[in-house]
């Protein structure tokens, strides 16, 4: 059981993507609030960034505005910022540490995005809550499709 603590596979998420843009541009898209607002958040969401101090200890406040009119607050603190290399930030709630790695590959950039949650319990909780929300959303979509079909038939 000694190696249990080091095994984080039950509380982490890892994304890897080779982006077709030079590292300078990818870095800019990640660190300039005006850029981030354009692509962050799921489809149909708008984003307002009230604070983004990209430096160790700097705060990052992002509000996602859902299509349903609800606002979702995202507060983070930057822990590490190495230009064109790495960004580490801690998301306050749910609490997780995200490490974004930028690796130059000529005109492309290999991006790794790693999210580590505090405990497996907490990770499961987040995933479950998210799944419940997602399930709900799908149900609403199904219902609206169903209603639309009904209207067409009448």
């Amino acid at each position, binding site marked *: 059981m000694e190696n249990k603590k080091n095994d984080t596979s039950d509380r982490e998420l890892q994304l890897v993507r080779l982006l077709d843009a030079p590292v300078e541009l990818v870095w800019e*898209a990640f660190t300039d609030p005006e*850029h981030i607002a354009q692509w962050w958040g799921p*489809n149909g969401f708008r984003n307002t960034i009230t604070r983004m101090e990209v430096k160790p200890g700097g705060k990052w406040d992002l509000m996602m505005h859902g299509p349903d009119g609800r606002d979702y607050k995202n507060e983070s603190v930057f822990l590490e910022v190495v230009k064109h290399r790495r960004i580490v930030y801690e998301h306050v709630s749910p609490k997780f540490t995200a490490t974004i790695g930028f690796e130059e590959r000529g005109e492309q950039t290999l991006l790794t995005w790693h999210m580590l949650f505090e405990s*497996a319990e907490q990770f499961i909780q987040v995933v479950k809550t998210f799944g419940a929300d997602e399930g709900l959303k799908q149900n609403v979509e199904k219902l609206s499709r169903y209603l639309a079909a009904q209207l067409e038939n009448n």
Partner: protein
Amino acid sequence: MKARRDVYQAIADPTRRAIIQMIATEPLDIKSLTARFDMSQQAISLHVKLLADCGLVRMEQRGRNRFCRPQLNKLEEVADWVAQYQQHWESKLDNLEVYLKKLKKERYGKQKK
């Protein structure tokens, strides 16, 4: 009985996760399970009961002993939710890709053929 217990509750506890891991390689009875923990047999029994209630473990009578056998297909449910959550983050990168394309065109559009 109402199915109020779910698979998440089952695996939210480290002892229960350890139990699943142990019986995944070989079915064990309560006694031999207890021997591997610093816990009373009663406490282990309760954990196993919860796992059984959630459908993650099936009890099997063999002679005088009841063995715990894992029912791992239930765990796929969890994997599905995790995959969905992962997809949520992947979609951010999809958006980023589209945005970078646009940005590249604006910046370097003229130089490229």
